[in-house]
């Protein structure tokens, strides 16, 4: 007992538990209820697994970094209207190019087009953060949400004008979907994701210093403005990446980031960054297995995650937004 308690106090042990859980999730996900040929399963589920892992890593890490930079554990970068912009882009593309045109544009081109536009929008919003005092942070969020509503309304506006025959090709993209990921997008996303992850990992000590607050960070010799801007650019790119890959997921990052803080019992990024990725994998893969196989729901993981994540958000707000 005493050794267990001692072990529990070490972060490495807790991380190891997460690693085991994540491995179990991966193995269960790949092997449960195999009824067809293995080669097919490996290919089909492998693509799904990779996309889920990419989303888990991108959203988890970017949320942690975003929260450190903004000194707030109730924020998630995805709240800022990026998902709504994504939906609007989908509708606009179908409206302007028709669905045949969208196919002709090619998945990879479309992916990069969406990526660039989403990063541009989020950079515009991030400017608000730097304009002033603490309250402007909430204002930035509010502006982000309202921009989101604006885009959502514009989307249904565009939908009204789209030929009903074209509409079906659009409808599939309205919900986050891990089942029909285009495999052509996986290699470029994986590379971009890896670059972002390496950047965050490289900056983990700077992040620890930034967490102390603006004045302390500057006193300790960090070029505050530059460091924060760089980090936020990468954060926005990562969120845009995951949205362009699978669709809008709003509260997932918030959920896993707070789970990582609680589990690791520390805010040091050397521990939190890997923990958040592992929690993300466990939540998505484990959740998918449980919802699909145990509860019999059909691919409702994104809805479930949004629901739980939203409740966590309210709970955190009621606790006063500190932890």
């Amino acid at each position, binding site marked *: 007992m005493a050794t267990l308690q001692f072990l529990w106090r070490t972060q490495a042990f807790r991380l190891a538990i997460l690693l085991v859980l994540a491995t179990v999730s991966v193995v269960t996900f790949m092997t449960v209820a195999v009824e067809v040929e293995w080669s097919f399963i490996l290919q089909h589920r492998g693509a799904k697994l990779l996309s889920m892992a990419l989303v888990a890593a991108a959203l988890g890490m970017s949320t942690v970094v975003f929260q450190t930079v903004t000194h707030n554990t109730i924020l998630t970068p995805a709240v800022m209207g990026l998902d709504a912009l994504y939906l609007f882009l989908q509708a606009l593309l179908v409206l302007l190019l028709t669905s045949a045109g969208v196919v002709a544009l090619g998945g990879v081109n479309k992916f990069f087009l969406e990526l660039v536009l989403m990063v541009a929008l989020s950079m515009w919003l991030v400017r608000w953060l730097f304009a002033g005092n603490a309250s402007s942070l909430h204002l930035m969020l509010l502006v982000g949400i*309202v921009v989101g509503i*604006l885009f959502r*309304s514009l989307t249904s*506006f565009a939908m009204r004008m789209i030929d009903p025959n074209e509409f079906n090709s659009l409808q599939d993209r309205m919900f986050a979907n891990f089942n029909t990921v285009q495999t052509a997008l996986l290699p470029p996303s994986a590379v971009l994701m890896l670059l972002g992850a390496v950047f965050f990992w490289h900056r983990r000590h700077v992040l620890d210093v930034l967490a102390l607050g603006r004045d302390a960070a500057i006193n300790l010799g960090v070029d505050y403005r530059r460091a924060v801007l760089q980090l936020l650019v990468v954060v926005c790119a990562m969120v845009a990446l995951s949205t362009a890959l699978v669709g809008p997921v709003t509260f997932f990052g918030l959920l896993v980031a707070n789970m990582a803080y609680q589990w690791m019992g520390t805010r040091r990024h050397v521990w939190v960054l890997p923990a958040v990725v592992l929690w993300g994998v466990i939540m998505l893969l484990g959740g998918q297995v449980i919802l699909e196989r145990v509860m019999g729901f059909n691919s409702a993981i994104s809805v479930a995650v949004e*629901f739980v994540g939203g409740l966590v958000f309210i709970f955190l707000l009621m606790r006063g937004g500190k932890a």
Partner: protein
Amino acid sequence: MRLHRPCDGAATRVNALAWTGALAALFALALASLAVGVSDVSWDTLWSDSDDDLVAQVLLFSRVPRTLALLLAGSAMAVAGLLMQMLARNHFVEPSTVGTVESATLGMMVTMLFAPQLPVLAKMGVAALFALAGSALFLAVLSRIRLRSAWIVPLVGLILAGVIEAVTTFVAYQFDMIQVLRAWSNGDFSTIVDGRYEMLWLSLAVTIVACFAADRFTVVGLGESFATNLGLNYRALVWQGLLVVALVTACVVVTVGGIPFVGLIVPNIVRLVVGDNVRRNVLWVAVLGAGLTMACDLLGRLLIAPYEIPVGTVMGVVGSALFLVILLRQRRLAGG
């Protein structure tokens, strides 16, 4: 805040002039709303003594009900927004941003699933109960949040609304009702005909009650201790206000679906001009709310005629753009 204003002759004249202008504009909008549509209803055909029965029928059964419904729903939602802002003591909330509309929609869906044979009035009652619970939940969450900057209040409301909407979507998903849900949760007056809108008169009655209680709600907006000092029962007043908001919202949601942003934009514009006194600005809010709703509906009917865009969508675009302008303006004023 301008509770007292010098009431000299000049001010009264300006006021009367403004009122005349506003009512004339509203009348013009109503006439336009009667005239616009697929079936050609020109004033000549109406007044010439031709035996064109069709024109009269279109007017009586479709155009007049639609225009009345727009007037009633627009003014009711705007007044409900004003009340909500007093209750939450924040200028950036309204029923569709704090979960009231979403709760009413959830209530509607529950009745459709479990008791589809209920009369419409009973369905509305259930929707109103849900709306009441949703708004009370918002106020409860709000009172427990320690960190209260002006911006966090609407933020909480929007997130709460999102969570309630997620529950509704989840249930709808399980029962394969997403399409039905989309069809009637978005404010749309195109299905309004004679016999389909009369419930909105109920919202008018509730709105009038709210106008008479306006002074009390002004005091509620000043806070609990202030209201108690003046000898008012603060809690009872808050519940009355919530009941009014919930009833009005349920009426509108059951009849035409949610109309976002009217309750947010209109009271803020009126406040900028007239000030914070509810009794002074409640009528302005009602008139402007009706006008804005009618204008958006007209726009939706004209943009892709002979088809039309639901008013909820048009209002979503117009309203959120206006709201952004107000937010950014406030921010510049605050010097943040």
